[in-house]
């Protein structure tokens, strides 16, 4: 009964979405207040019914209702309760329901937090969100209904994929989806602006906080995903350039370009058409990401069993969304362009170069990800593009991005003088060069072959020192600590930027050190054997069998010491899950700010011998710490006063005032 209610709720949500897609939008053109006023209640109604559907699926999981196919495939009586909940988004149907629910949530949030916006804009934004929602609901009802029944019901479920039975993965997909779906709001604002033919700075101001929230979620989602892959897949890598990872990176790159471009549009009124285009691309790439993950067209280490019929649906949907919005753009953009002028040496120029580099890299990632598809379609054979290619592309663009990042933040809008910049930045520049030389001089492993190490570390210090110089410039006229603290309160978007940029520096530091100074050993060991790496001594004591709630595990024991000091005892596990019989590697990690020690069990080789992985990963945590700093920076910027105050007539640009009246 309850699954049928869930199914019905989805149908009702679809009906509501259809009304929501038509009436507020039509009302905004026909100037009918009553039609436009329908937007908010409809958005809330949509969320309510999607939440009912979600609750029904949750109930089916919690009550072990294996007559529901989706539950039978992804759950089991022995599954711990928390994973019964996360199993909802453990496979295809449920994750699409989560997508739709989050989209409904974003719609309701827009309906709630848009009191200051003209009703016309709100109506259009909410209608556009409903159009996207219709696509997902149709997709769900026709190709992937999570409430499908099976009779007779199996006595026991097939269990959740053991890889997904992990706290990191319980929260990683919702975070990532919040980001993906969140860009739909930026997209809806862009489309609404195009429909209205009025792209002004007010539009950018409204769209900015929403885009930033989505970006924060996506950043956290990707960071969590990378961290999860590191400890759960048992390979000790943190990024594989896998199609599914690329699928999340592309919208992130576009989204990062978008938040920078929005800043220019809001502050200076320039880049309007470009910003709209970025918003369209960021969301399109999110949709493409869903398509890539769910259709199974690409070979991926992440690929789950899939269904090509679904791929065809998403492909058509994708064509409608991208084609439709680009057509609208081509039709409307000439009317809405024209913007502020700026010199070659200005903050606008540096933000433009940031945008071009990020967009170029996103395009390259897209090209590399789709190349196997293109080759196959053209009959040129089946290929795969190795990760060295992606690394090379990243390394070709990243240095410029880092270099400009250190200049752009302190450059003035509109026009700046080279003399002033040199005066402000020569000390950080020399410090960065000094850091690079110090790296060459004191890190013995660096040879002429790996000049990338001093370059990367020099750039990381360049970002750090140049931002510190910018901060000094900002604060040196403040009289005392109190005034400085007050500045943090009043300039939160500046300090948010500072944190996020420092996050980039931390990421560069971590990625460089772990890639160049880490060691990875695959080794065969007998109990009592000792292996030494990077000054640590790993003594293998053997493996014993221990029981778990829904699995049996082989548990290894390693005594790790350095010199005469015991560092830690590491106990990696190899689990075999009862229901699926699927083996799982649980690595044992001793983490620290300067290094991780990582041991995982490979396979038994007979006679008590095991194949083992022993890794030493210096500064690997800084990669995710950097991701967290970026997200924190985003959150800090979100709390900036100008997104909160309602009476903002004073500092509003003329265009915005005109739009509000």
């Amino acid at each position, binding site marked *: 009964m309850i699954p049928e209610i869930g199914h019905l709720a989805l149908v009702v949500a679809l009906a509501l979405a259809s009304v929501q897609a038509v009436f507020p939008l039509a009302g905004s053109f026909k100037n009918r207040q009553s039609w436009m006023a329908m937007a908010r209640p409809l958005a809330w109604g949509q969320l309510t019914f999607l939440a009912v559907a979600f609750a029904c699926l949750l109930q089916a999981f919690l009550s072990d209702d294996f007559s529901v196919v989706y539950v039978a495939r992804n759950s089991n009586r022995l599954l711990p309760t928390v994973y019964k909940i996360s199993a909802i988004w453990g496979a295809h149907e449920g994750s699409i329901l989560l997508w739709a629910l989050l989209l409904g949530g974003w719609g309701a949030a827009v309906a709630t937090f848009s009191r200051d916006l003209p009703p016309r804009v709100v109506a259009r934004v909410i209608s556009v969100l409903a159009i996207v929602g219709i696509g997902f609901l149709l997709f769900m009802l026709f190709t992937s209904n999570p409430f499908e029944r099976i009779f007779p019901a199996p006595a026991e479920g097939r269990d959740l994929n053991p*890889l997904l039975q992990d706290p990191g993965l319980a929260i990683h997909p919702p975070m990532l989806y919040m980001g993906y779906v969140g860009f739909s709001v930026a997209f809806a604002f862009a489309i609404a602006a195009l429909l209205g033919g009025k792209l002004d700075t007010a539009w950018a101001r409204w769209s900015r906080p929403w885009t930033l929230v989505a970006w924060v979620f996506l950043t956290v989602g990707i960071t969590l995903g990378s961290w999860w892959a590191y400890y759960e897949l048992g390979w000790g890598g943190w990024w594989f350039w896998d199609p599914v990872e690329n699928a999340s990176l592309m919208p992130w790159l576009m989204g990062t370009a978008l938040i920078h471009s929005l800043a220019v549009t809001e502050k200076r009124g320039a880049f309007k058409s470009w910003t709209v285009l970025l918003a369209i691309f960021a969301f399109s790439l999110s949709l493409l990401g869903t398509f890539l993950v769910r259709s199974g067209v690409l070979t991926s280490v992440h690929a*789950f069993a899939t269904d090509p019929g679904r791929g065809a649906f998403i492909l058509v949907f994708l064509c409608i969304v991208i084609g439709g919005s680009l057509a609208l753009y081509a039709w409307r953009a000439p009317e809405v362009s024209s913007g502020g002028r700026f010199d*070659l040496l200005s903050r606008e120029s540096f933000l433009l170069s940031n945008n071009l580099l990020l967009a*170029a890299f996103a395009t390259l990632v897209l090209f590399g990800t789709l190349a196997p598809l293109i080759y196959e379609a053209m009959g040129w054979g089946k*290929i795969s593009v190795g990760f060295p290619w992606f690394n090379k592309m990243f390394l070709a663009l990243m240095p410029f991005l880092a270099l400009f990042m250190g200049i752009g933040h302190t450059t003035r809008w509109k026009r700046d003088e080279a003399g002033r910049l040199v005066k402000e930045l020569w000390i950080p520049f020399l410090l960065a060069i000094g850091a690079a030389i110090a790296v060459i001089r004191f890190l013995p492993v660096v040879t002429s072959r790996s000049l990338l190490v001093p370059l990367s570390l020099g750039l990381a210090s360049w970002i750090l020192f140049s931002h510190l110089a910018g901060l000094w410039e900002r604060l040196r006229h403040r009289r005392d600590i109190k005034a400085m603290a007050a500045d943090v309160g009043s300039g939160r978007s500046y300090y948010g930027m500072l944190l996020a940029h420092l996050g980039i520096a931390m990421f560069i530091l971590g990625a460089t050190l772990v890639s160049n100074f880490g060691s990875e050993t695959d080794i065969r060991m007998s109990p009592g054997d000792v292996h030494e790496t990077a000054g640590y001594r790993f003594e293998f004591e053997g493996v014993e069998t221990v029981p778990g709630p829904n699995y049996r595990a082989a548990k290894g024991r390693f005594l790790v010491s350095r010199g005469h000091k015991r560092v830690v005892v590491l106990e990696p596990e190899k689990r075999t899950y009862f229901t699926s019989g699927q083996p799982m590697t649980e690595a044992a990690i001793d983490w620290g700010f300067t290094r991780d020690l990582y041991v995982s069990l*490979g396979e038994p080789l007979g006679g008590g011998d095991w194949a083992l992985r022993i890794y030493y990963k210096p500064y690997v945590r800084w990669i995710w710490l950097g991701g967290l700093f970026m997200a924190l920076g985003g959150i800090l910027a979100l709390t900036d006063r100008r997104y909160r105050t309602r009476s903002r007539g004073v500092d509003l640009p003329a265009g915005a005032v005109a739009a509000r009246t």
Partner: protein
Amino acid sequence: MKARQKRLTFVALAILGVGIAAALAISSMRSNMAYFFSPSKVMAKEAPTDAVFRLGGLVVQNSLVRQTDGLTVVFDVTDNTATVKVSYTGILPDLFGEGQGVVTKGRLGKDDVFYAEEVLAKHDASYVPPEVADSLATAHAQGVAKMAENQ
């Protein structure tokens, strides 16, 4: 027209940048690309002997042999028409198994043994890599056609 010149400079720079990026990307993609070959194609000498490529198929039952010392394993990969011996040094992924689909990446040795540098891992026991499914289907179709000819 100063503004126009400025815009032209930007456009020219952008085109130059895109051109260089595209040229670099495509040229370096050639060296990082790995084609896929089925065991039949490898046995028919269609696979390169001097480049990295991917080989996929089913792992033959009871063909896995472990070295008594060290981490080298040898197993046979088949598409039910031809079989290639694969040698790999390292730890096999959790979901590797005899009778199951596998994709490996490496070079073909002079001794016709495929020396794999990488054995692709999967996330899901019921997942078959599309290339493997394809090559099995092709080999199957060819086998059926051959049988029809023989009759």
